[in-house]
């Protein structure tokens, strides 16, 4: 019997499938994001773990020592093959090797096997044979002996680095004087001008100082470099390595889990504060982290006020009409322009236009060497600011738009001017929305690489944008960036396989930085929200 209350709607009309569809879409999105993060984390977090070194005896009688990386079926599908990092690039010519399991006769984990992180040529795997301090030589296989020697060498190097600092300082001062003299040349100051004479004599004395320092440095370096150690690789080859070139040495096969954890944390710290080595495939990422954060920071300083003020004008002051509507559409579309186009605009407008203008106005004596007329942190930040300003405008406009009319009227009715209402009521109330815009803008800026590549990012920056030399903040300098770093070491490096772990680590770091900056901004926003939202009644 047909009930009167029975639904006559078809199944799809009930809306049930829509619920499932939207749920599925959300899960899919979340899933891809989570998988991405997991892949990055698995690959990135394991990089610094000191895995054991295996020594393999192969069918042909040769021996290989290396870190096991992964295994996969051989091309003819008859068995498995394993990839090992065998390091010793300067000895073997390559640091990764695929070995068929069928070829392996015997494998063991020799305790004496050491890992040397070197300044050049990547890691070295081998056993210690002897140490030489230049004049005397002795046979030893103890890691502790080697460690003591390396510590001594490092101590000497620390003294040397003081020298180096002096050198850098002297060359910086010489450069400043050279520029001043260039300025005098440009101003056609006569050759016997006392000022010029003073500068020249200063420069000469500095030059003498510089010469002695360089000599001292090279002499001392030579002495330090006399200390060497001899190692034996897995297949019996001997290799003499200068102790000064050894960055760190450890024996992973002797380490307990506790040791390994300490080692791992130590490496993490190095990652954050250290300088890159080996064409960026090893060492720390400090300059890139610094460059990225600095870039986002300077970008925000420009884009935040500009966007907010533009939005205030659009929403509060401009008379609503065709023009305003067109402007609004244009602003919305600006957000969709490919970022490389912004980069080209930045290059053409900021660098060649404004930068060159600044150079010819203030530093004409240095031309054709550009000062501001070349890529730098300032121009890259401005380009990114331009790229993100639509995001700030749109969200600020929206935030201002949702403030109820009663708020404005309440303020006006008490005798407030438009400006007072804006500053005291509207902007504070819109601040959570404005913050949302800033968060989005920062996230977008942090991820952009393309526009940076033509506005001042470099593979290796000689100096940070912030240092002890006046005026301390050098926005004209080139900088490093984590996003570009990923591209550079991952796809432009001569040794892609060796760079791979670093790519994952850098990616992880970039995600982390974006996450940290966003969560700080979100906390700030929630605080504002609490303060400025309505109680319900």
């Amino acid at each position, binding site marked *: 019997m047909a009930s009167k209350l029975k639904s006559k709607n078809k199944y799809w009309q009930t809306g049930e499938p829509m619920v499932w569809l939207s749920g599925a879409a959300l899960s899919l999105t979340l899933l891809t994001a989570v998988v991405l993060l997991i892949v990055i984390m698995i690959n990135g977090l394991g990089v610094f773990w000191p895995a054991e070194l295996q020594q393999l005896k192969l069918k042909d009688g040769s021996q290989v020592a290396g870190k096991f990386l992964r295994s996969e079926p051989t091309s003819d599908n008859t068995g498995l093959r394993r990839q090992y990092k065998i390091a010793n690039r300067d000895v073997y010519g390559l640091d990764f090797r695929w070995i068929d399991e069928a070829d392996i006769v015997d494998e063991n984990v020799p305790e004496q096997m050491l890992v040397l992180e070197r300044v050049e040529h990547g890691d070295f795997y081998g056993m210690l044979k002897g140490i030489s301090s230049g004049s005397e030589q002795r046979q030893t296989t103890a890691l502790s002996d080697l460690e003591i020697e390396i510590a001594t060498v490092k101590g000497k190097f620390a003294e040397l680095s003081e020298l180096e600092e002096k050198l850098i300082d002297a060359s910086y001062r010489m450069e400043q004087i050279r520029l001043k003299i260039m300025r005098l040349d440009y101003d056609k100051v006569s050759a016997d001008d006392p000022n010029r004479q003073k500068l020249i004599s200063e420069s000469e004395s500095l030059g003498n100082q510089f010469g002695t320092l360089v000599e001292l440095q090279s002499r001392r370096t030579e002495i330090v470099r006399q200390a060497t150690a001899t190692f034996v690789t897995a297949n019996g080859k001997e290799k003499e390595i200068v102790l000064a070139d050894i960055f760190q040495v450890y024996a992973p096969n002797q380490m307990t889990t506790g040791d390994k954890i300490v080692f791992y944390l130590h490496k993490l710290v190095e990652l954050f504060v250290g300088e890159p080595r080996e064409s960026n495939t090893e060492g720390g990422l400090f300059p890139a982290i610094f460059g990225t954060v600095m870039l986002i920071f300077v970008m925000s300083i420009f884009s935040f006020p500009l966007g907010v003020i533009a939005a205030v004008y659009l929403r509060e002051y401009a*008379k*609503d009409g065709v023009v305003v509507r067109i402007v609004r559409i244009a602003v919305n579309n600006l957000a969709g322009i490919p970022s490389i186009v912004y980069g080209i605009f930045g290059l053409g407008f900021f660098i060649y236009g404004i930068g060159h203008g600044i150079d010819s106005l203030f530093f004409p004596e240095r031309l054709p060497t550009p000062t501001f007329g070349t890529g730098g942190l300032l121009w890259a930040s401005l380009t990114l600011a331009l790229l993100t300003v639509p995001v700030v405008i749109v969200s600020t406009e929206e935030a201002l738009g949702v403030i*109820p009319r*009663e*708020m*404005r*009227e*309440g*303020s*006006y*009715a*008490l*005798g*407030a*001017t438009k400006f*007072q209402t804006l500053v*005291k*009521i509207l902007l*504070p*109330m819109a601040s959570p929305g404005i913050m949302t815009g800033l968060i989005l803008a920062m996230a977008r800026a942090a991820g952009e690489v393309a526009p940076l590549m033509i506005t001042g990012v470099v593979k290796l920056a000689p100096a940070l944008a912030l240092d002890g030399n006046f005026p301390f903040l050098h926005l004209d300098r080139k900088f490093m960036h984590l996003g570009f770093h990923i591209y550079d070491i991952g796809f432009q490096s001569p040794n892609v396989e060796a760079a791979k772990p670093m790519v994952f680590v850098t990616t992880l770091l970039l995600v982390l930085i974006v996450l940290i900056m966003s969560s700080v901004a979100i906390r700030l926003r929630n605080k504002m929200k609490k*303060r*400025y*939202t*309505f*109680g319900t*009644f």
Partner: protein
Amino acid sequence: MTDHTTDTPIIKVNDLKFYYPGDARALHGIDLEVQEKQVTALIGPSGCGKSTMLRCFNRMNDLIDGCRVEGEVLIEGESIYAPSTDVIELRRQVGMVFQKSNPFPKSIFENVIYGLRIAGETDRNLLAERVESSLRAAALWDEVKDRLNESALGLSGGQMQRLCIARAIAVNPKVILMDEPCSALDPKSTARVEETIKELRRDYTIVIVTHNMQQASRVSDYTAFLFEGNLIEYGQTEQLFVRPQHKQTEDYITGRFG
């Protein structure tokens, strides 16, 4: 009720016409005199122009692009639509309380002194004094005196509306305009606000727009009945409610329409 013979007009409306954008006329030439330190109620069905008229008294309608005013509104003999009139100064003299309570997202204290702050008043003692006197006048002091620094958004609906009244009083206006101040409140809160209005009558001239006939008869001394942009009848409240002169007024107050 007060002795009406001593009343002096504070607001004089002469032939006031108001056009919304697109020349839609909302007021068709209104003549009215509002008496000082009395409560004047504007009643009438929805869309009759009573809120529009109220907003003409502090030039709130200026915020609407493309509207137009003809005729004259004199407050204490000064035409408020004269070119020389400072709107900011006018709004300080003519306060307003809105239909929907609109406390700012600030502390109770800051809400009350908002008008003084933007006028440039910085004397802390005076501000604190004014907060207390205004909140007392709005009958809110006892309820909030211990939490002046808490957010005004934590108050109840009725308290918020009384806070808005206190905020209007704080700048010491001559006239307070109220646009259906109780329409969003429950009966208990309404009673308290009405109590407040009666108290305020001693010091301020009040013009109140209301939908509620009982409210008009309870709180007002004078009542104006508007219908379709025309002032149909205006007089002392008792007379208007007991002996309406016009058929339309009678129909409206007896609930036959509206």
